[in-house]
């Protein structure tokens, strides 16, 4: 057993309102640069819908992920190592810009510069690639909220699959259809096929927290990772000629704060925590038969309360703070204890580490629209069994088509709904509802608390990077506790002598003082002076004005 820690995310899809705040804040933080105009490390898709890039789930076309060869061993769907090497001259199935979309801006200047006339001036769309006038025909969320679904709905690869298997049409008529939002980031897989595809070996998984990153110094732009990733979450920066991807906001994670997408999520639908997993068994698990992939992946996730696991983790050098975080991990609870969070497309065999609690809302909405009581467990259970289309669609996304598994999860969510209604209405809690789905009443209540009202520190249990590594993490390569650091300007020869104090340290200390202190910002550390940038307007600190006592006359 080789225990490793993995930072992981769970998204509870029922709580996603499709506001795209995560996408926007992520883009502002990471991809608002030339060369990444079309890149969304985080995007929110409306399903059913084609997704971004268009039809990325059609692996017969894009050849992402892994498959089993005749001897039952893993191989990249896009070919073996030699085939990949011969593909570097022109990557055979790389998506083009039109599969993502051509990024654009508007000629805003014409709004203010246009000569006086009878017509309103118009800001024409301009391509960010060519600079020419362009016609906007597609974007990362063109089919948002089922827009154009009656025309294009059949192009969703999952719709195609459901249709092929059940010979039943997914109805796109307004009254009959269903929809939900699917936010997607990089899955930070345990068995990443992008990494396996990289000829340069530039993509790596961090041993400490499992974040998958592209070494920008080592990437040579061979583009194989873009084909390799079945989620199409590796992007080519056409300006720098390097691959880029979601970083799980590792600088934030190292400081113990959640990713930008999670932090800014309006619906509070994201949870971040760590898993302990057995790195030695990853390949074996990824080679399991398709219907056993989910169980195999869950098996990899180790019980953080198991003494054997704890012993091995300590042996592997995992810090106590990380073990503690693993025991409190919300993602472990949802994925393994309650088994309500599922991996996206386990059939790609990459062992994805962003998990989804499938939405019950398609079922609830359809029930309610038909005039039924959508909180009643009997109605809900019946509907889950009867409404085959949404269930089959969800199964194609989360369980490789296994409807039994997805039904089990949906029944748990439905049971939680009914169980909590009784409690909320002051009736007696009916633990038989919980038992019907294999849980106890207290488990159900705990699950409700986690999914519905969990506080910030319960939703994000992120241990900080080890302190001994701090010097690698601090801005300017300088840790906070370096000799004479936090006390500012303490050189032997006056205030500008001694070693230069990094700006970040000064700000950090002064800001913390300002935020936590109750006194005016004039303590000894300020050496009798007031840094106006740090002055909180609170009182009249000494040193704000020239000292009158010394002069004495005025």
């Amino acid at each position: 057993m080789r225990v490793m820690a993995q930072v992981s995310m769970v998204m509870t899809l029922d709580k996603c309102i499709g506001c795209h705040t995560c996408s926007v804040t992520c883009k502002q933080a990471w991809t608002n640069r030339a060369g990444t105009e079309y890149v969304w490390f985080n995007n929110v898709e409306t399903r059913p819908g084609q997704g971004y890039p268009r039809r990325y789930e059609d692996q017969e076309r894009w050849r992402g992920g892994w498959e089993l060869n005749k001897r039952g061993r893993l191989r990249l769907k896009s070919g073996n190592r030699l085939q990949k090497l011969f593909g570097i001259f022109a990557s055979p199935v790389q998506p083009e810009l039109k599969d993502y979309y051509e990024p654009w801006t508007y000629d805003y200047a014409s709004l203010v510069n246009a000569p006086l006339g009878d017509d309103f001036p118009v800001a024409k769309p301009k391509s960010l690639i060519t600079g020419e006038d362009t016609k906007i025909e597609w974007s990362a969320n063109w089919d948002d909220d089922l827009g154009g679904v009656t025309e294009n709905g059949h192009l969703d690869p999952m719709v195609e699959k459901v249709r092929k298997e059940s010979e039943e049409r997914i109805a796109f008529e307004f009254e009959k259809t269903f929809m939900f939002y699917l936010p997607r980031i990089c899955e930070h897989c345990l068995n990443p096929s992008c990494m396996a595809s990289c000829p340069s070996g530039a993509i790596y998984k961090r041993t400490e927290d499992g974040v998958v990153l592209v070494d920008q110094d080592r990437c040579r732009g061979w583009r194989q990772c873009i084909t390799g990733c079945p989620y199409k979450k590796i992007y080519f920066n056409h300006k720098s000629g390097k691959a880029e991807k979601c970083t799980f906001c590792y600088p934030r994670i190292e400081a113990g704060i959640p990713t930008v997408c999670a932090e800014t999520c309006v619906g509070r639908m994201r949870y971040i925590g760590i898993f302990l997993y057995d790195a030695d068994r990853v390949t074996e698990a990824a080679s399991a038969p398709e219907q056993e992939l989910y169980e195999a992946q869950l098996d990899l996730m180790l019980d953080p309360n198991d003494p054997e696991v704890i012993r091995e983790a300590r042996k592997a050098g995992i810090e106590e703070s990380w073990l503690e975080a693993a025991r409190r991990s919300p993602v472990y609870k949802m994925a393994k204890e309650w088994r309500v969070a599922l991996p996206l497309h386990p059939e790609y065999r990459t062992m994805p580490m962003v998990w989804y609690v499938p939405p019950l809302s398609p079922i609830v909405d359809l029930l309610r629209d038909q005039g039924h009581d959508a909180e009643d467990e009997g109605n809900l259970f019946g509907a889950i069994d009867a409404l085959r289309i949404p269930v089959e669609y969800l199964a194609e996304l989360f369980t490789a088509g296994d409807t039994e598994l997805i039904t089990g999860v949906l029944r748990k969510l439905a049971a939680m709904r009914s169980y909590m209604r009784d409690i909320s209405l002051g009736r007696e809690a009916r633990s038989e509802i919980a038992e019907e789905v294999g849980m106890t009443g207290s488990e159900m209540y705990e699950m409700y608390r986690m999914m519905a009202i969990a506080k910030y520190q319960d939703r994000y249990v992120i241990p900080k990077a080890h302190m001994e590594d701090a010097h690698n993490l601090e801005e300017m390569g300088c840790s906070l506790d370096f000799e004479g650091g936090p006390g500012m300007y303490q050189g032997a020869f006056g205030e500008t002598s001694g070693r230069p104090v990094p700006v970040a340290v000064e700000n950090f200390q002064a800001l913390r003082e300002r935020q936590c202190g109750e006194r005016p910002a004039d303590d000894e550390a300020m050496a009798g002076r007031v840094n106006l940038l740090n002055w909180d307007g609170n009182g009249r600190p000494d040193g704000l004005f020239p000292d009158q006592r010394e002069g004495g006359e005025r």
Partner: protein
Amino acid sequence: MNVLDLLLWGVLPYVTLVILVGGTVWRYRYDQFGWTTRSSQLYESRILRIASPVFHIGILVVLVGHIVGLLIPKTWTQAMGVSQEMYHVMALGLGSVAGVATLGGLALMIYRRRRTGPVFMATTKNDKVMYLVLVSAIVLGLATTLISVTEGEAGGDYRETVSPWFRSLFILQPDIGAMAAAPLSFHLHVLVGLLLFMLWPFTRLVHAFTAPVHYLFRPYIVYRSRGAGRRSSASPRRGWSPVGTPDRERR
């Protein structure tokens, strides 16, 4: 042996070697971030899909041809029982097929570069100079092949002039006389070739030096510790520019 011969065939090759090796080492140390193929496949892939493999495979065959022709002495092949005629037929046959493929592929790629808007906009001055020298080297190389076909023995046997000179360079005893005796077409081809190698470390051609052969041998999954330092010894520059107009200006 006059001064010009001495400079061109005795001094210039070493200058080239110093620039090639020194420039490559320098760039590898200080510009890891700029070391890339700068692929334009995202903009256009229909032409590239054909042109690029034709060019690259062609030039790899050309490379092998050069290594065989320059490094293996004539006496060795004759000892193996390969007659002059057989050698020539083989070399010219394979060489001209590979050369034409290389040139054809490159021509198609340059056409694509000029005619596809985004690709042309992503073309730097550096690229244009590099393309000029690269095309010249290939055209002159094909010309030497054609001339030796049409003129036969009168066209000069490079295996008695260029090759001995090339090998003598590496034992620091340049056989200037042998190279000086080669026909003009070879002189030009070699000179442009040297120029290409001088430019090499400073253009996108560097990607050839990091051809990922080790991919065949490495494990699929790469684990790396957070603490592992940077590879480049230079402090990182800002590796990006904001979205907007300056980088989109017409060149």
